[in-house]
């Protein structure tokens, strides 16, 4: 099984006649594009919460997007609108509001989350031991201004607690029966 971390422009993860086949044969994916609370741009269009999105259908456990407002959570518009897309996905990482680096300049936005969530820990054994959610916060506190809010939506279950999940070589169990979800946000 491939387990790669990095930044790519992707096709999409959407099932449907008008989209190309989904590609989620990696454990973690960081993506840069424009967006809004209801969807994000991809190379050949736009993926929205109205689409039959299945994150994690093959392998994907962590999907990170810099699209603006993807995880906005308000009384009128719950971040739970993305829950139908959680096939076996563990974490959707994004922003509660606008990301200033959205749409261009890939490097630190992909490399810093990858470094804090895995690369540093596996390069220097025992050091930089950081859960995925914390690595996302740390990285964005470095590359975004203080008026931006990182956010995440995670699935969890009694048999597969994802709160402290790390990016690791082994395949973590997927939340399945009795799933519940947490969304959180904080200032960058």
């Amino acid at each position, binding site marked *: 099984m491939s387990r790669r971390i990095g930044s790519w422009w992707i096709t999409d993860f959407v099932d449907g006649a008008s989209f190309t086949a989904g590609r989620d044969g990696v454990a973690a994916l960081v993506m840069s594009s424009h*967006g809004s609370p209801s969807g994000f*741009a991809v190379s050949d269009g736009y993926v*929205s919460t109205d689409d039959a999105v299945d994150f994690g259908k093959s392998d994907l456990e962590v999907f990170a997007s810099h699209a603006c407002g993807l995880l906005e959570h308000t009384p009128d518009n719950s971040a739970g609108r993305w829950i139908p897309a959680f096939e076996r996905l563990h974490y959707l990482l994004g922003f509660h509001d606008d990301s200033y680096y*959205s749409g261009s300049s890939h490097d630190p936005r992909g490399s810093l989350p990858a470094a804090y969530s895995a690369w540093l820990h596996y390069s220097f054994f025992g050091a930089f031991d950081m859960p995925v959610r914390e690595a996302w916060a740390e990285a964005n506190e470095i590359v*975004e*201004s203080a008026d931006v809010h990182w956010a995440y939506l995670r699935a969890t279950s009694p048999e597969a607690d994802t709160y402290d999940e790390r990016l690791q070589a082994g395949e973590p169990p997927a939340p399945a029966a009795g799933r519940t*979800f947490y969304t959180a*946000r*904080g200032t960058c």
Partner: protein
Amino acid sequence: MSLSLEGIDWRVTPPEIPDELPVATLATPSYEERLHAVRTLHDRFTLGETIELDLPEGVAHAGRRGEVQYFAASGAVRARDTEVCRAFPDERRPWTDVLEVDDEGGPRYVLGEQTSSLLFQDAGELLRAARLLPDGLGDVDVVLDQWAQLDESGAEIDRGPGRAVVRAPYSLDGVPFIGAGAKTRLAYEPVGGRPVLARMFHVHRPVVDVHSVRTGGTERALTGLLRDPFLVEHHQRGACVAVTGIQVGLLALPAVVPQHIAAPAVAVRGVLENVHDDRRGPIELRFARYYQAVSAKSLRAAGFAAAHIPH
């Protein structure tokens, strides 16, 4: 081809940009100059035995208890206590001095005055001891992370406060630094009934000289916005460009990016409405970008070669 000021749907008042603004020459503190801060943070986080690591971004002292990290591009430092960060099994935090307030974004939690004062005092003492209290410190505040638990339908079944973060911005002669590269933040967790420092990050390149630079007034200073190829392309295809937030300041680049001058810029938030999409009809795309507010010619006139401004 470009947009015009009149062609933008201004949902905030367009700024009155002065004809002249300051431009700052910045220093980059060396590792040796930050060594006192690194040692102070190492002691404060009781990191114990650590190894010194040469990283692509700088130097770190890291071990099982956490790490303190120096960024060579900016002189920034960050530090983390792994054990405090591991103290909770989920997002819930047992703050006792918390209020729920309701604003335009919905209900959110804020820390009470008594605990906030404790955090301000602790943060001030640590930054003073680490010699990380530079000139230009702005109004310090404290904010709480927010969380909500959802069921499969997306409905909230619980919510509450998370970590508390003390934040400090910076300014120069009343002009704020904008961007990711001028801030101090200290994150606290309620462990054993008291706030305990879990993480800190400080980035602010010291200002060593200040000049004035001509902006040419509001419309000229907004040239970057009006000529943004992404916005212009969508506008030409029928999209509406709306600006929902704008701030004028000196752009401080992220801690991992070298920077020698901080030039006037505008931080713009907005939304593209009625964007054409072949498959589903009109969609909406938000954007947030920095634009240089002075021309290369103006910077040259002030004695600077150019300014690196990322999109």
